[in-house]
């Protein structure tokens, strides 16, 4: 207990029995302490409840399928046979596409904001990018359906086929909806996170690091690429992990453009499904306990993955900001 409590206790006459507790609580400090403590503890309670409910409600599915849930590809509500492989595949592929686009773009933009732009301009742009992060995901989905999907069908898709058609990932029919479209939308959605965290981290790199590199004759770019970015490496990785966690769990925008098909295919043009989009599409109508349980298990998987990624990301960002980034 706090120090105020002990002084109060020693000054007050000792009482025993049920009154003692109430007597001690007459001190407003303790009431406030306990009340706020209860609310703080309620966060622990809610979070454990989330885990508990996911665990209990996925019991049927876990008991029946065990680990095979993760590497079988049938998803058959009629015959109660469930394997999550296509959804895990879809989740990984869309997130990978998103990162391939978002990491270079976000890192470059963050470098510009932290190293080149004057402070006012940098703050102004960072403000706009924060607004981009605030745009609801259903709006991205709306734009995805009516802008990105047609573009993919008529412009981006054909262009990629002519340029890189020899790669298996750019072969096969192009419907407009699919892994690539979902990945592009996800990239736009996670790029603000990469930029704002990386910018913060880059700004904490000590000035003398830059100046030392410049004094040795490095160009501005060499100083940035060979000194500043390596220094901030752990924090940048943290921002990428945050972005990845967000991309894996993103639901609405992906559901609206991925085409919703139980499908494993090398082609990025083919429609598919992610863990989140499957839950969004099927949970509301799931009839049958095992079906529901399988969907909850998908949610549990999603929770665990994002939990681990977020934890790692926090640690990396903290490590860099404390200046141990080079270790």
């Amino acid at each position, binding site marked *: 207990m706090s120090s105020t409590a002990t002084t109060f206790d020693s000054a007050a006459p000792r009482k025993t029995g049920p009154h003692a507790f109430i007597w001690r609580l007459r001190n407003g400090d303790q009431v406030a302490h306990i009340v706020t403590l209860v*609310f703080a503890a309620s966060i622990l309670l809610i979070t454990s409840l989330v885990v508990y409910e996911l665990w209990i409600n996925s019991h049927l599915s876990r008991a029946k399928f065990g680990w095979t849930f993760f590497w079988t590809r049938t998803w058959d509500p009629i015959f109660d046979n469930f394997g999550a492989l296509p959804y895990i595949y879809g989740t990984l592929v869309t997130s990978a596409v998103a990162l391939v686009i978002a990491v270079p773009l976000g890192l470059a933009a963050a470098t510009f904001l932290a190293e080149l732009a004057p402070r006012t301009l940098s703050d102004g742009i960072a403000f706009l990018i924060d607004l981009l992060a605030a745009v609801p995901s259903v709006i991205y989905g709306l734009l995805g359906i009516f802008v990105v999907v047609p573009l993919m069908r008529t412009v981006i898709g054909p262009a990629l086929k002519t340029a890189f058609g020899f790669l298996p990932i750019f072969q096969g029919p192009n419907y407009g909806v699919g892994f690539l479209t979902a990945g592009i939308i996800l990239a736009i959605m996670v790029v603000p996170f990469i930029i704002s965290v990386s910018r913060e981290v880059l700004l904490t790199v000590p000035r003398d690091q830059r100046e030392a590199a410049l004094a040795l004759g490095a160009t501005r770019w060499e100083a940035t690429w060979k000194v500043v970015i390596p220094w901030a490496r752990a924090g940048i990785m943290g921002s990428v992990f945050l972005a990845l966690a967000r991309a894996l769990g993103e639901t609405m925008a992906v559901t609206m453009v991925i085409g919703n098909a139980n499908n494993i295919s090398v082609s990025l043009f083919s429609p598919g499904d992610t863990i989140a989009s499957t839950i969004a599409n099927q949970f509301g109508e799931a009839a049958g306990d095992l079906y529901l349980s399988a969907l909850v298990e998908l949610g549990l998987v999603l929770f665990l993955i994002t939990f681990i990624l977020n934890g790692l990301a926090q640690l990396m960002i903290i490590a860099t900001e404390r200046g141990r980034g080079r270790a």
Partner: protein
Amino acid sequence: MKRAALIWRKSLNVIMLTLTGVSALVVVSVLFLILGYLLWNGGKSLNWAFFTELPKPVGEAGGGMANAIVGSLKLLGLAAAIGLPIGLLAGVYLAEFGGKTFSFIVRYTTDILNGVPSIVIGIFAAAVAVLPFKHFSTAAGGFALGIMVIPITVRGTEEFLRAVPVSLREGAMALGASRWRTIATVVLPAARGGIITGMLLALARVAGETAPLLFTAFNNRYWSPGWGQPTASLTVVIYTYATSAYDDWHRQAWAAGLVLLGLVLVANVGTRLAVSRGGAARGV
């Protein structure tokens, strides 16, 4: 040879630095593209009926989203009632009372809760508040959103309480005020602007959530009196209308998108500007 290397390094410098600028420009222009598209498409479809009328039966043009607007407000109100008090008091605990280990655990858990995908929160709320009662309800939707409000409010409250100078606390204590009195009458009022901002940002964030509502509040084409029935909300209606096959529904989805984005952006810009101005005035 040396000269060639120098020219190469210098041109690489110019090229790469230009590319970084172009990247920043591309990302920022996406925001303006989104805004422009919504203003163009949504503006065309927005009219007075949108705010005052119920949806027309399928296939009939016209109608509005009055029920979805009211539904969103009710969900948001319930989310605020559940999430804000918990967030505020937990934030006070972390900033004013917390010890080391327990505070660390609470803070870390808060970050975890913040990172839980919204669809998973939806499953949780459905498991707790829908499956046992066997029907969708406004209350379940508000509960789901309320949980999402908590972590953002906690971190905002804690941050702004910590920004209050220690001298203020010491001043109050020197005058004989007890600890909670100091917090209630000196520290909280000093941090009021920031805390309210944090709360508004938390509400603005959950106002745009769709995934947790899909199988908690569900949807409704009519008014939803009370808290025990499914309700329409702007976000879920945008989702259903955008993925439907009717042109008129697409137009209404754009209009609803414009209204939603407008609300979210106004809340964000307004509060952020207020904070930066207030922060400068206080000298924090």
